[in-house]
């Protein structure tokens, strides 16, 4: 393990400044290396995510942050290194199998299903919870219909939660950027994930909207105990929300620790922050 | 008040080039009868045309649109449509004439009461061809190799059985090579032919397949005079596109062509000069135009026969059928009509809906741009064909619970 000593905590978790209890290891990345032809996107990186934590990944453009999320969600398969999920080494899996483990995410370049309504997009997020078979669905039999209604109720809660009731039936292609981001979050939430991966959830939002978004993220973490890993370039958001931060640069890890530690880490300041960030 | 003679034509689609002159010839003859004779037995002919584009479903649509309108006789002009219409025409009591195409076993009028295919069928054609080459080789084909180049469809596969049976009798080596529709691409087929070095190639082609084949034959320097087409591969459209290369190509002919018949004097006077002709006027006298004209002539003759049998001028389709079943075309009658020796003399009966089955051989002269007949009427091996017909038609009867019987 190449954790910096300062950020290492006892394995059974820790208590954050605002009094939340963080549990044991949910996911550990061990010595991950990912290459695309000659490009090394991730170079021997290790870090972990604990249960209930808000974990930020930051770094300059092209550092390999999104690639890291792609490794976690099984879209990229690293050439070297292991992904440990809940204490067990995760075998090579297809992305949809990873999703079934309870890992949901949003994407940097919005990846909504453009031809579907907002409601349908979010319902798709619940796919991993649906069981009805083909024939049942075709005939719209009792259980299929009941399942649909039950899941719809949950989705409606999320819709209320994210305040997107008014666009429920709008095709997402027509939505402005910010609302799309919100729908994407809703879709990920609908999966009721254990681990939620957010790739720049607040890009393209103004402060007011970022405040809203922050609130949502905190509430999800609070209410459902969802663990969150997020990539974000807005340092205000990162420093305020996250419990621990990983910093990447050119595929390498250059820092890992609490926001305060990162803020004062000279390597991070040089590579990314530019000025010491308050 | 009038007699309805519909025409299911195809002036569009991949086979339009063949469909247009036929439809024009058919129409012009009927127009002539109207203009010159005032119709049939004093009753004027009403023509209608429906475009099938050689497409089965459109053919069915056409059939539906005309069947309530007392059509005297249907000429579907496509093997596919014929198969569709055989059961329907039985139900609707409308006679169908498939002249030199369609279902060959309809020769058996006891099973196929409403379908006629005089004056000759595909199986006749295959047999005529073999008889012709037999004659050329003084009755011995035992060391010969014959290739059938066929359009890979129900139409093209028709003669295979006959040719196989005949090869057993005459001892020639038989090989069939299929060409996929539409047939613009026959490189490998002709390479194979070049390798096999057959003595004769007979082609069951249609549409663009024909000129392509002729061109390819010329390319591999296959002797053109040993290359034969059936009567759907023997029109000007087929040879002209191949230009010089087609010189010497031969084909079967079930009737004569050209404008040198007395009837064209009337045609000129009543139809062409009057501006009543159906097409551009350019194709008058060509092979397929003549075929349309011939088909119309046979239809009109059958109608006259029906009027004669039933003693009324206003005949129904069912009466027309009777006329067709008792149709007799003699040399004298053809001469009377201004078409001396135009087709074979034949008569139809309930047992034989196909007439005589005779055909001639014609040869293309690329310099003069004409088809020249090089033989007289050649008769097919009727015994064998009747045997094959019985086999196939009785099987059909069994399958469809038909008890073979004549209608009257």
């Amino acid at each position, binding site marked *: 393990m190449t954790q910096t000593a300062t950020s290492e905590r006892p394995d059974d978790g820790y208590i954050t400044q605002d009094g939340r209890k963080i549990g044991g290891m949910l996911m550990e990345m061990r010595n991950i290396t990912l290459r695309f032809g000659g490009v090394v996107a991730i170079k021997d990186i290790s870090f972990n995510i604990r249960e209930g934590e808000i974990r930020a990944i930051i770094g300059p453009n092209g550092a390999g942050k999104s690639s890291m999320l792609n490794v976690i969600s099984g879209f990229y398969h690293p050439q070297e290194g292991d992904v440990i999920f809940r204490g067990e080494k995760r075998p090579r899996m297809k992305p949809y199998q990873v999703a079934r483990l309870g890992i949901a995410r949003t994407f940097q370049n919005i990846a909504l299903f453009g031809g579907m309504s907002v409601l349908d997009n979010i319902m798709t997020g619940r796919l991993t919870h649906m069981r009805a078979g083909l024939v049942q669905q075709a005939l719209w039999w009792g259980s299929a219909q009941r399942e649909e209604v039950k899941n719809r109720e949950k989705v409606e809660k999320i819709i209320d939660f994210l305040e997107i009731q008014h666009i429920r039936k709008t095709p997402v292609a027509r939505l402005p950027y910010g609302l799309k981001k919100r729908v994407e979050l809703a879709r990920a939430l609908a999966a009721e994930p254990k681990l939620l991966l957010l790739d720049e959830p607040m890009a393209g939002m103004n402060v007011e909207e970022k405040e809203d978004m922050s609130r949502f993220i905190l509430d999800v973490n609070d209410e459902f105990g969802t663990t969150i890993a997020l990539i974000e370039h807005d340092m205000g958001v990162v420093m305020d929300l996250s419990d621990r931060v990983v910093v990447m640069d050119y595929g390498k890890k250059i820092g890992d620790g609490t926001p305060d530690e990162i803020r004062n880490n000279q390597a991070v300041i040089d590579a990314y922050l530019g000025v010491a960030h308050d | 008040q009038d007699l309805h003679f519909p025409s299911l034509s195809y002036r*569009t689609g991949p086979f339009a080039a063949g469909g247009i002159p036929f439809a024009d010839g058919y129409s012009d003859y009927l127009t002539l009868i109207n203009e010159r004779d005032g119709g049939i037995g004093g009753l004027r002919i009403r023509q209608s045309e429906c475009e099938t584009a050689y497409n089965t479903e459109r053919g069915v649509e056409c059939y539906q649109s005309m069947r309530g309108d007392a059509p005297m006789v249907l000429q579907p002009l496509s093997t596919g449509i014929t198969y569709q219409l055989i059961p329907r025409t039985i139900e609707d009591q409308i006679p169908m004439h498939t002249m030199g195409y369609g279902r060959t076993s309809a020769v058996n009028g006891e099973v196929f009461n409403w379908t006629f295919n005089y004056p000759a069928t595909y199986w006749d054609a295959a047999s005529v061809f073999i008889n012709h080459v037999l004659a050329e080789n003084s009755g011995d084909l035992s060391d010969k190799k014959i290739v059938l180049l066929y359009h890979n469809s129900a139409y093209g596969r028709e003669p295979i059985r006959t040719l196989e049976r005949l090869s057993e009798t005459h001892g020639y080596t038989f090989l069939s090579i299929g060409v996929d529709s539409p047939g613009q691409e026959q490189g490998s*087929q002709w390479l194979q032919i070049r390798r096999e070095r057959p003595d004769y190639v007979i082609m069951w082609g249609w549409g663009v397949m024909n000129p392509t084949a002729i061109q390819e034959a010329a390319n591999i320097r296959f002797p053109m005079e040993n290359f034969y087409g059936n009567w759907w591969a023997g029109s000007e459209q087929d040879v002209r596109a191949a230009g010089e290369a087609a010189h010497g190509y031969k084909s079967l002919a079930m009737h004569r062509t050209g404008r040198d018949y007395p009837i064209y004097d009337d045609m000129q006077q009543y139809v062409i000069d009057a501006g009543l002709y159906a097409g551009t006027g350019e194709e008058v006298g060509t092979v397929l135009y003549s075929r349309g004209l011939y088909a119309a002539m046979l239809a009109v003759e059958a109608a006259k026969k029906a009027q004669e049998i039933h003693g009324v001028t206003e005949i129904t389709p069912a009466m027309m059928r009777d006329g067709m079943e008792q149709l007799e075309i003699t040399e004298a009658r053809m001469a009377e009509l201004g078409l001396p020796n135009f087709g074979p003399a034949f008569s139809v009966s309930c047992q034989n809906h196909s007439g005589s089955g005779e055909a001639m051989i014609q040869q293309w002269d690329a310099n003069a741009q004409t088809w020249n007949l090089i033989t007289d009427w050649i008769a097919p091996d009727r015994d064998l064909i009747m045997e094959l017909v019985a086999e196939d038609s009785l099987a059909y009867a069994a399958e469809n619970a038909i008890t073979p019987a004549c209608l009257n």
Partner: protein
Amino acid sequence: MPDQFYYALEVALNGLTAGVMYALVALGFVLIFKASGIFNFAQGVMALFAALTLVGLQDGQIPFSHLINAIFGTELHNFGWNMPTLLAIPATMLVMVAFAWAVERLILRHLINQEPIILFMATIGLAYFLEGFGDIMWGAEVKRLDVGLPQGMSGALEEFTFQTFGYGFYLDRLDIWAAGIAAALVVSLTLFSQYTKQGRALRAVADDHQAALSVGISLRAIWVLTWAIAGFVALVAGIMWGSKSGVQFSLSLIALKALPVLMLGGFTSIPGAIVGGLMIGVGEKLFDFFLQPVIGGATENWFAYMLALAFLVFRPQGLFGEKIIERV
């Protein structure tokens, strides 16, 4: 049995030339796909239309005479002159340019930034329209096309191979010409699209219409240009195929022979069209040659597709196609 070997060799050789003929049609597809992301279903009909126009001009046919005659009861057919081939070909090319212009003006302009399937559909509408239009304009009968290209067996080759191997190989002279023309086309088109500013713009348009607009690429100019070039390629294909079997409706169906070629070579690769054509040509001819005794002939139609399919399973973008970018 050395003969069998020579036969097979001959079949393969003829497969190569057949493949070139397919590639001629496929080139038109590739051009338009590369330049605008449009899968141009009308390419076959364009070849037909170009050939019809060429013959019509050569023979001095009056366009729309059938329609005019039907409406006004006139008797128009021919102008009474024959246009020399050297004049008729550029004249046809002008018609194809006008066609390209009309396509841009009336159709493509209104469909900027639409999904590929919709543009595909539009080309289907265009194919229908053009097919009817061509028939009305020039008539539906079979026409003979002769631009003076040599045809028939290449005697020299047969002679030579007979001397050398004791077996005379067959090759059609028209096919040899086709190969030469195709090679010239491929080289010039590749140079154009790979090394010119316009070429780069074409590829940009295919990726993203809107972004292309935003950097000032005039979609209109680009589209007229590519459709005109595709029209030219269609004319070449029309001439070659038309010389073989006459000009009439079925000519438009050669597009179906180009599809597997396209798929194998990759929709975006000009050299791919040639390589794909050669592979398909040889593959289908040899397959037919070896397996005809076992499963019967006429396998060419499906074999070409199956071969392409087999390759695609390993390379989903075709042999030389641009890799499909999959990222999130």
